[in-house]
């Protein structure tokens, strides 16, 4: 099972509604994945700055931490607390020292980084997870989300999707990979770091490696068709891009819809029914082993 969703806006007047639309899509797919949920939202960038998404145990004193980071960053750090997560925006030049400082803070994990991406995931019913994080109030250009029915690894926050292995890059996966251990070992030798034993994180890592080597998102996705074995439907976000890829046998369901204003992905059509203008949208099933990709210009 598992459910995945993605929404890429072509009409930026919809940007304030992105989180609300994504929350609705995610909630519809609760019954495909009641164990955990997560999502990534690509919001506005602050020139010269980077966003870090931090995760902490419930009840963590974020205010105290921000005070500490202000000192390290040598300028006030913008921050927004969302339940167990906080998004801090700081000068890109100070990222290394802030990360070093965070490493000394017990319980804090940096779960996402990028100029535009903020990433949230937690164990629990997807609609409640979305509410806890206030997804409906987040704006942005594109976002992806996942509702998880765990099969290959435990129900933990780290095992929830999306997985991110590079700046502004993340991936959600429906399916299971069979060669992830071998690919993980190969990627570790090339300098990538993995947080979990999860198969989907390896898919994210593979794309990160290809992108780092200079491939376009489209080329990286194309290459993953040969490198990754198993069942998968991936939805992928990068700073400016949005991609969809299914395995050659198309084991896992997928439906897409597109209008002048947006492109959307859902594991089922039910997830798309509240999008504006969906009744007039072009609705289709993405072909197996075919790269679909949109880029923001």
């Amino acid at each position: 099972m598992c459910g995945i969703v993605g929404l890429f806006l072509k009409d930026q007047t919809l940007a304030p509604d992105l989180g609300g639309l994504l929350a609705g899509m995610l909630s519809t797919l609760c019954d495909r994945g009641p164990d955990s949920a997560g999502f990534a939202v690509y919001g506005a960038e602050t020139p010269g700055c980077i966003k870090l998404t931090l995760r902490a145990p419930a009840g963590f004193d974020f205010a105290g931490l921000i005070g500490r980071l202000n000192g390290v960053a040598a300028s006030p750090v913008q921050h927004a607390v969302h339940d167990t997560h906080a998004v801090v925006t700081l000068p890109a030049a100070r990222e290394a020292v802030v990360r070093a400082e965070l490493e000394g803070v017990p319980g804090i994990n940096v779960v996402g980084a990028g100029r535009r991406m903020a990433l949230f995931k937690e164990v629990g019913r997807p609609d409640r997870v979305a509410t806890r994080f206030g997804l409906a109030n987040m704006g942005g250009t594109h976002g992806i989300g996942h509702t998880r029915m765990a099969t290959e690894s435990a129900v933990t926050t780290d095992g929830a999707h999306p997985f991110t292995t590079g700046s502004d890059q993340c991936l959600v996966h429906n399916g299971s990979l069979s060669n992830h251990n071998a690919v993980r070992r190969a990627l570790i030798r090339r300098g990538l770091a993995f947080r979990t034993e999860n198969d989907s994180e390896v898919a994210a890592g593979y794309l990160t490696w290809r992108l780092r080597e200079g491939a376009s998102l489209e080329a990286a996705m194309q290459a993953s068709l040969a490198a990754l074995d198993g069942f998968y439907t991936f939805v992928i976000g990068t700073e400016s891009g949005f991609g969809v890829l299914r395995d050659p046998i198309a084991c896992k369901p997928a439906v897409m819809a597109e209008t002048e204003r947006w492109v959307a992905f859902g594991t089922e059509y039910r997830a798309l029914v509240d999008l504006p203008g969906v009744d007039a949208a072009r609705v289709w099933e993405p072909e197996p082993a075919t790269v679909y990709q949109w880029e923001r210009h």
Partner: protein
Amino acid sequence: MPTVDLARTPLRELNAALHRLAPDTNETHWQVLNPRGAHAVAAGIDAPITVEIEGHVGYYCAGMNKHATVLVHGSAGPGVAENMMSGRVHVRGDVSQGAGATGCGGLLVVDGNASARCGISMKGIDIVVKGSVGHLSAFMAQAGTLVVLGDAGEALGDSIYEAHLYVRGSVKSLGADCIEKPLAEHHRAELRRLLTVAGLDGALDIGTFRRYGSARRLYHFHVDNAGSY
């Protein structure tokens, strides 16, 4: 004409009402509004009625259908008309995987495309797809006919038994034990009949179709065929 708005009425109420209908019911024409991708819409009907669904449906629409005509004014998700016994299911848009799977009888007409595994393990159903079908269509098809006006994907008719396959466009590849066969006069007559019931009477040149079927080499285990199983 009973109209059921699924934005207001639970799906189970609709299906229960359809299941209660007697063969001689006077409520012979139903309209379903706002299906919004719901699963199992109009599944399990056993009465000679017509159900028109105004929008896209999810999984297993009109599954197990007997006697009814189900018309979908939209697209359908996986397993439309799965295990249909008789009647007619007509989808105006596209259908997802496993359309008409294991169907024993009746007619499934798809105006758009069908994705993978259309007619998988079909056992007597007739399927007419006006667009193209995806990979592994008619996999292990036992009886019935699959007519495709467009193209067929990889491994058409893999491990096929006695179903008749007619494709007008290209076939990416044939599956194990599926071969092209001559289009004899009785096949032309069968094709003509199916195109007519699908509303394509006289619209197409029968001679533009090619027929595929079983080479009958895999019916019984033979060690020489071990690599094909």
